[in-house]
C-alpha cells in the first residue's frame, strides 16, 4: 500500500504541525501549561481533543513544574506522554528534567526556543533548551513545521526505544508561528512507524515494583552508566527512525544534514531556523563561486560526535553560528564542536560566531559577509558578536 496516498497537504504553523504530530502519535496523557510562544500547541491539542479526534487525558496543572511532575510517573505507568513548553517554563522544569531521565521516562516534549528572562523577551534564542543539555534528554532541533511534525513522531519511537526522554526544539515565531505547507501523514503510516508503548517494567499493581527509592552510591553511579550506554544508542536510533520515516513518507532525516558540502572550502554549522537562512546564503555563495556548504546539527543530545568528525574531516574551515550565548564561553554549539574536533587530524579551522542572539535578524547576505570575513582568518578565543 502506498502510504503517501493518504497523506494530505495543509498550511500549518510550526506549533500546529507539532499538535498534528502529537495527534498521530496517539498519546495517552498530555500535561501541559500555556506559555508564549508555545500556547498554539496547547490550543491546537485542546481543539483536536474537544473535537474528539484525540483521546488523551489532558491535564492542565498550575505550572510547568507540575506538568513535568505528572509526565514522569504517567510515563512510568506505561502511558505515552507528551508535553510542550518554552523558555521560563522549561527552566522551571529543570529539576524534573533530571528526574525524568533518571527515571528513564520516555516522554516527548516540544520546546519552543525563546529568550529566557530577564529582561522579558519573546524572541527566538536557543539558550533555554541548550542550558538543559546536561539533564539527560535527547534534543533535536527542527527548522520547519514539517520537520517538527515529523520529528515529534520520530522522537516517540526513539524515546520509547531508548527509554530516554526527548525534546524537539523549534525556534519561536520563525518556526512556531511561520505557516507553511505541511504534509500530514496518514494515521496508518504513523501506526506502522510507531508501535504502542509497552514498557516491561512499569508502575503496575500486578508487578508491585517501585521506582525512585533512595539508592546507594554504587547504584546511583550505575544509573548514569546505564544512561550513558542508552544515550550511545541514540544516534543510530535517530538515524534508523529518520530512514524508516523517509521510506514511509519520502522525507528522510538523519542526526546531521549536509547541504552542498561537496568540495566545500567553508562549512557553516548551525541548528534550527538559522538553517533555512544559511541554506539560502550557501546557494548565493555557490552562485558567486564561493565553495560554501552547511552542516545542520539536528540531533544535539546526544551529540553525534563520530558523525560530526566524519562530516567535517578535511574541510578547511567551519563557521558555527550560535543563536544563544553562554556567558563566559560564548556560543554553546561552538564549544561543543571544539570539543568534538579536538585532537582530530585534518580538523577545520573552527570559528564560533554569535549570530541572532535574542532573536536579532540575520540575513543571508550577512552570512555571506561573515564567510568572507572569517573564512581565511585564524580562529580567535572568546565570544564574537557579529550581528
Amino acid at each position, binding site marked *: 500500500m502506498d502510504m503517501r496516498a493518504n497523506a494530505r497537504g495543509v498550511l500549518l504553523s510550526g506549533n500546529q504541525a507539532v499538535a498534528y504530530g502529537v495527534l498521530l502519535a496517539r498519546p*495517552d*496523557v498530555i*500535561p501541559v501549561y500555556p506559555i508564549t510562544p508555545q500556547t498554539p500547541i496547547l490550543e491546537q491539542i485542546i481543539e483536536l481533543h474537544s473535537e474528539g479526534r484525540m*483521546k*488523551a*487525558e489532558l*491535564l*492542565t*496543572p*498550575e*505550572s510547568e*513544574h*507540575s*506538568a513535568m*511532575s*505528572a*509526565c*514522569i*510517573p*504517567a*510515563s*512510568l*505507568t*506505561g*502511558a505515552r*506522554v507528551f508535553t510542550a513548553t518554552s523558555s521560563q517554563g522549561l527552566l522551571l522544569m529543570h*529539576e*524534573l528534567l533530571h*528526574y525524568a531521565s533518571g527515571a528513564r521516562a520516555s516522554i516527548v516534549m516540544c520546546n519552543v526556543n525563546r529568550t529566557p528572562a530577564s529582561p522579558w523577551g519573546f524572541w527566538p534564542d536557543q539558550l533555554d533548551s541548550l542550558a538543559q543539555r546536561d539533564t539527560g534528554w535527547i534534543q533535536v532541533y527542527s527548522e520547519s513545521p514539517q520537520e517538527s511534525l515529523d520529528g515529534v513522531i520520530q522522537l516517540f519511537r526513539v524515546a520509547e526505544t531508548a527509554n530516554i526522554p526527548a525534546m524537539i526544539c523549534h525556534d519561536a515565531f520563525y518556526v512556531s508561528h511561520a505557516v507553511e505547507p505541511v504534509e500530514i501523514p496518514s494515521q496508518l503510516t504513523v501506526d506502522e512507524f510507531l508501535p504502542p508503548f509497552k514498557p516491561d517494567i512499569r*508502575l*503496575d*499493581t500486578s*508487578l*508491585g*515494583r*517501585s*521506582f*525512585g*527509592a*533512595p*539508592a*546507594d552510591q554504587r*547504584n546511583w553511579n550505575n544509573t548514569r552508566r546505564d544512561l550513558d550506554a542508552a544515550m550511545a544508542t541514540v544516534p543510530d536510533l535517530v538515524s534508523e527512525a529518520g530512514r524508516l520515516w523517509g521510506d514511509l513518507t519520502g522525507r528522510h532525516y538523519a542526526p546531521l544534514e549536509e547541504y552542498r558540502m561537496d568540495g566545500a572550502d567553508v562549512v557553516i554549522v548551525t541548528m534550527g531556523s538559522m538553517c533555512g537562512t544559511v541554506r539560502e546564503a550557501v546557494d548565493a555563495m555557490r552562485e558567486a563561486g564561493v565553495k560554501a556548504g552547511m552542516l545542520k546539527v539536528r540531533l544535539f543530545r546526544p551529540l553525534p560526535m563520530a558523525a560530526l568528525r566524519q562530516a567535517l574531516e578535511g574541510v578547511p574551515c567551519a563557521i558555527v553560528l550560535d543563536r544563544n550565548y553562554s556567558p563566559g564561553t560564548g556560543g554553546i554549539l561552538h564549544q561543543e564542536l571544539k570539543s568534538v574536533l579536538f585532537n582530530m587530524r585534518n580538523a577545520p579551522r573552527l570559528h564560533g560566531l554569535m549570530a541572532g542572539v535574542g532573536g536579532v535578524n540575520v540575513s543571508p547576505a550577512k552570512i555571506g559577509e561573515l564567510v568572507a570575513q572569517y573564512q581565511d582568518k585564524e580562529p580567535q578565543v572568546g565570544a564574537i558578536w557579529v550581528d
Partner: protein
Amino acid sequence: MELISYQDEGQFVSGHVACGGCAEALAMRVILNTVGSDAIGVVSPSCSAVICGGYPMSAVKIPMFHTTLESAAASASGVKRALVAQNKPDTTVLCFAGDGGTYDIGLQALSSAAERNEDILYICFDNEGYMNTGGQKSSSTPLDAITGSTPSGKTTRKKNLIEILAAHRIPYIATASPSHINDMRAKIEKAKAIRGTKVIIVLIPCLPGWGVADNAAVRTARKAVEAGVFPLLEIEDGVNYRLNVSEKGDSIESYLKEQKRYRHLDAEHIARLQAESDFQWRRLQQRVADSPERRS
C-alpha cells in the same frame, strides 16, 4: 472496650527503617492495608519515603513512585490519568507526603490538583516540621514549638491547611490520628469510595523531633485529639463539617507535657496556647453548626 478491626493483608512489610515506635509507620500500616492491593502510590521525599524505600527493597507491596518534594499531588495526577487512559479508573492513587511537602513546597501542586478535583487520595503525615532533615520548622509547626530553626519557639501560628483545602470545595477532607485506628480506617475506606480529590491529614508525633518517648507516640497523638489540639474531623464538599470526637478536655497541658519541644513554656505561654486551642475549637464547632447538611 472498642476493638481495633481491620484486616492486615500484609500490604506493609516488616524490615522497614522507621524509628522504633514510629507512629507514621503505624499509620502507613493502617492506610496501606485499608487501601488494599489495587493501588499505586506516589511519595515525596519525607520519612514516609524513607520508610517505603531503600532500593532494592520496598516495605510496601503496592508500586510506589518516589517524586520530588513539591510534586506529590502533580505526580499522583499523572499516574491517575495514565491509569484512566489504560482503562483502569478504579485503581486508587495514593499520595504520601509530609507537612513540608504539603503545607509548604507542595501546596501549589496540591491546590492545583484539588482545583482540578483529580481522583487521588492524598495523605499528609503531619509531624509539624521538617523532621526527616533533623527537625526544622515548617508552616505546620505550631506556635511556641521549638525546632532546629525556631530555637526559642515558633512565633507564628500553624497554617490552617484544613480551611485552605475546604475553600477548594473538594469532596472529602479529614484528619486522622494513629491513636484512633478504627476512625482512620473508616476514613480511608470512605475516601477510597469517593471520586475526586481526598485529603487526609494524619497527626504524627515525631519521637526525636517532638521529644517524645519511644513508646509514647500513640499516647501523645491521643492526647492531642482529646485536648482538642488536633480535632478529628471530616469535611465533605468543603462545607459540611463533622467532628468525630465531639468533646474535648479542658486542658492541653498533659499533651504539652509529653513533648520536649514545649518544655520551655511557662504558665503564661501555656495559657496563650490554651486560648488559641479553645478559639480554634469554637470556630470549628461553629463550622459544624453552620454546615448545610448537619449530621450528628
